[in-house]
């Protein structure tokens, strides 16, 4: 008898397997609708290759794998694709996912398929392709693509192939019934897998609580070299790592694969699926699922088409809605509750558990952790669950990782024994998810940092390149100039040349304008411009004087200069005109010019006289003038009154006199002010 090893911890929950093992496997039949999620395995979801309304046959490919770690999907029976849409699926989070929906036609018509008569004659890679194309994913619960798991490189050297018939979860009997009824197919599957991985030994591990299954396997295995290893029942001996330790005494390194210790492990259900695919050419389209719990009157195992709804399957087992409040997919230790009875059975659904409330009571509220250590004794991974709980609760994730949080297999043994009813596993799941998220975030920010730095480097490099080009150009130009100077300036300096070009242009313009205008016109223009400037300057001066500004002297000088220029310009104009008159025939037009000139001169003289006067004088003059006008107006008014002129005219005259009086008063006060200042 082979030596078996023990693993740390473990528990003995009530097995509750007898309820569902009594009856043989029953065919669940064909439901009206099958809902096939595209992701029933670990890895990328499959990609649909059928269209809505398309007829499909049993076994027909309906979705192809989307990468290496992915598996295809086949129609479990014949019918029509009625939808490809999001449906609620069996997932702990209760979310929806893309599904191919098939309306079955009840004919169950197969597509052409055939198996291999002699699998040993074909190439290893061809066998793997057959397994991959059959859509087989680990049927023990995790759903890892079987072909990927079996693609072990030859140089790894597999010592032991282990088939897992442990089924340590309470209630579930799907593997047990498979052993009882299909032992030969299990052995055949084991041999095919062994042909692929070439192990030194083939073991099938079974807990000692399945004597009938063990007996059937032993009979079937006779003379095949497949060894059935029986060991004491203890949860969770069916965990891959635990089973490997039980059978080989070796531990899979943390974070490593079983192949690291020369082991490949497969569920016996997967072995049968491999056998069906290779020998019969039958893809994975159905599975054996246990329906049990006090919520069903007829607990047993069913061969059920993938995509059948839980509700359909439960109906077959005489489901009592009033007895049951929660539906568990999987066993009572690691299974998860489903949100709705209409979620589909998938490749990994080994059990549908419908317990009565008294059977699996809802957990009472959690009490404080008293660190009793019962969890640490039960932990199959030799962790310290109480410490992990402490760290998870306190969000001390670093410490939790130090205490090997990620080696937790979430078997639930710690929660099972916890006297304070603490949902420990849930804390670890949450902590793991948070750590994963933190890692992702860290990775993302690291990625951003690298990108940012790369950009900075690129910008700096571009700047440097530009600078280098500029320097090169400058140097080239200097070199050119130097060469030119050396060669006796056959080529001019560019700047000098530009300056000269500008000068030449200016000169050309000046010449052009001279030729365009006559000398007389130019002179006239000069006079007008200068006069304007004089006017402006005078106005400014007046204002400055009124304000008493400091600029008066400067402005005065400006005005004098401008006036001098104006006189010069006028003189030049006059001389020009006289010269023109003497040159040409005197014309009529010349006279007005003279008269205009005389008027201008008079005005100018007056302005000059005016400008020369001091403010007092100006004010006094203005006052005298106003007084004179006032006298005149008064005289006119008196005259008008005496003459008895119209009232209108009298009023107008009166108002004029009135206005003038005001102005006089104003001027008088202004004159006084200027005298005072």
């Amino acid at each position, binding site marked *: 008898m082979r030596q078996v090893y023990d693993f740390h911890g473990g528990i003995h*929950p009530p097995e509750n397997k007898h309820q569902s093992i009594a009856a043989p496997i029953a065919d669940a039949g064909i439901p009206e609708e099958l809902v096939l999620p595209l992701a029933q395995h670990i890895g990328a979801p499959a990609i649909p290759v059928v269209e809505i309304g398309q007829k499909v046959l049993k076994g027909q490919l309906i979705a192809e794998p989307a990468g290496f770690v992915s598996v295809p999907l086949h129609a479990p029976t014949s019918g029509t694709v009625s939808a490809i849409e999001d449906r609620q699926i069996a997932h702990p989070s209760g979310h929806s996912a893309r599904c191919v929906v098939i309306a079955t036609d009840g004919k169950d018509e197969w597509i052409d398929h055939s198996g291999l008569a002699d699998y040993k004659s074909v190439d290893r890679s061809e066998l793997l392709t057959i397994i991959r194309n059959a859509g087989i994913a680990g049927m023990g619960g995790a759903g890892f693509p079987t072909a990927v798991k079996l693609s072990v490189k030859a140089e790894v050297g597999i010592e032991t192939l282990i088939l897992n018939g442990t089924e340590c979860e309470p209630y579930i009997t799907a593997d047990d019934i498979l052993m009882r009824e299909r032992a030969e197919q299990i052995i055949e599957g084991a041999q095919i897998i062994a042909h692929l991985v070439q192990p030194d030994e083939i073991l099938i591990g079974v807990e000692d609580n399945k004597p009938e299954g063990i007996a059937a396997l032993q009979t079937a295995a006779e003379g095949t070299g497949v060894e059935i290893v029986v060991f004491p029942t203890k949860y969770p001996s069916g965990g891959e790592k635990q089973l490997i330790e039980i059978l080989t005494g070796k531990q899979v390194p*943390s974070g*490593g694969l079983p192949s690291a210790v020369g082991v490949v492990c497969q569920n016996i259900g997967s072995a049968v699926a491999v056998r069906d695919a290779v020998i019969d050419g039958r893809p994975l389209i159905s599975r054996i699922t246990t329906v049990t719990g006090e919520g069903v009157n007829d607990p047993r195992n069913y061969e059920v088409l993938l995509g059948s709804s839980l509700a359909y399957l439960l109906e077959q087992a005489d489901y009592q809605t009033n007895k049951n409040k*929660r539906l*568990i997919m999987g066993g009572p230790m690691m299974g998860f509750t489903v949100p709705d009875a209409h979620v589909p059975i998938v490749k990994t659904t080994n059990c549908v558990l419908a317990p009565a409330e008294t059977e699996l009571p809802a957990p009472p509220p959690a*009490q404080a*952790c*008293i660190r009793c250590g019962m969890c*640490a004794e039960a932990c199959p991974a030799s962790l310290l669950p109480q410490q992990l709980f402490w760290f998870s609760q306190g969000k001390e994730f670093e410490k939790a990782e130090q205490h090997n949080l990620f080696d937790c297999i979430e078997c639930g043994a710690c929660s099972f*024994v916890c006297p304070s009813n603490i949902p420990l596993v849930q804390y670890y799941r949450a902590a793991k998810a948070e750590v994963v998220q933190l890692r992702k975030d860290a990775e993302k920010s690291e990625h951003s940092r690298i990108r940012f730095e790369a950009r900075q480097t690129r910008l700096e490099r571009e700047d440097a390149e530009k600078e280098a080009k500029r320097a090169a150009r400058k140097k080239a130009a200097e070199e050119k100039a130097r060469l030119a100077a050396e060669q006796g300036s056959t080529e001019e300096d560019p700047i000098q040349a530009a300056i000269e070009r500008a000068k030449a242009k200016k000169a050309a313009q000046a010449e052009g304008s001279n030729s365009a205008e006559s000398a007389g016109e130019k002179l006239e223009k000069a006079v007008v411009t200068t006069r304007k400037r004089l006017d402006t300057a005078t106005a400014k001066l007046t204002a400055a004087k009124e304000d008493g500004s400091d600029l008066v002297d400067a402005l005065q000088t400006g005005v004098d200069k401008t006036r001098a220029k104006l006189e010069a310009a006028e003189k030049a104009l006059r001389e020009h005109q006289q010269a023109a008159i003497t040159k040409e025939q005197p014309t009529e037009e010349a006279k007005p010019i003279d008269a205009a000139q005389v008027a201008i001169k008079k005005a100018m003289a007056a302005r000059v006289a005016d400008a020369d006067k001091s403010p007092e004088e100006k004010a006094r003059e203005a006052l005298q003038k106003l007084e004179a006008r006032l006298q005149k107006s008064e005289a006119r008014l008196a005259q008008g009154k005496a003459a008895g002129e119209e009232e209108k005219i009298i009023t107008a005259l009166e108002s004029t006199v009135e206005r003038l009086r005001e102005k006089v008063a104003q001027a008088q006060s202004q004159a006084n002010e200027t005298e005072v200042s």
Partner: protein
Amino acid sequence: MALMRITSPHAHGPMSTARVMQNVLLATVPGVIVLTHFFGFGTLVNIIWASILALAFEALALRLRKRPLGFYLGDYSALVTAVLLGIALPPYSPWWLIAVGIASSILLAKHLYGGLGYNPFNPAMVGYVVLLISFPVQMSSWAAPRGVGELPGLLDALQACFTPGNFDAVTMATPLDLLKQNNSLLMDDLWQQNAQFGRWAGIGWEWASLAFLAGGLWLLYQRVFTWHAPVAMLVALALTAALFYDGGSSASGGSPLFHLLSGATMFGAFFIITDPVSSAVSTRGRLVFGALIGLLVYLIRVYGNYPDAVAFAVLIMNFAAPFIDQYTQPRSYGHAARREDNE
């Protein structure tokens, strides 16, 4: 009908915190019976009065902390503290002494730190040490055992507790006291001259110790705790005693058997240091924790100022527990034996 959503596991074992505490209470019964037989009803009165006070203080603390009374009182943890302190206190202690002790245990050592599960120190031992330091006279007077002195009746015991002024106790030095004060007698002479020594470790004490040992073994069988801490403590104490035992000279520290069966050794090993909240967590850690307590018990008994040492040893090691945890993390599945090898 909406389906219930609960996370796994859906099955739960039969153990509950209340049951753990009930088992502990049950396991003290033989010891209490033996103590009552040899020292009269004093211990029983201690326990009852301490229990009433403990529940009252617990309720008060829970009310002040706005916690549901029924839920938390139902965990029996206050009762366990009360019974352990009641056993540890000298029989016929006055009511106020017990009250001060229980107040220190429940309010100071337990609820100020956040209640059950959050106390770094063993509550019963905190209460005990507060009393030992504050009221050394009352705490060091232990009743004379049956056969040596006259045993008071139940009424006397009640009187001793509630009207201590009217009660004249017959007290006597304990064997540990006598051993500590001895400086001239050979062990054999000491035994002969003092009636209370009995056969191995003192009349009453040796049987009470064996009764607590029996209760402790039953708890082990019930898987309330693991063997690591108690065995480590007893082995360490016995080994240390054997190492320093010179065959019975006047300077002798007492034989290993004497140390195992006298004072609070057995009671401490199975009922005090096994308090999981304030001890180290891993099995290896509990080995270290227990062994160091055993060593400290001997050192304090023989070289310290106090005749018995369990309370002090436990509190000192409570301080050290997190430190021990740091260095005694078990090797997890799939990890190399030593931490460096993992990297």
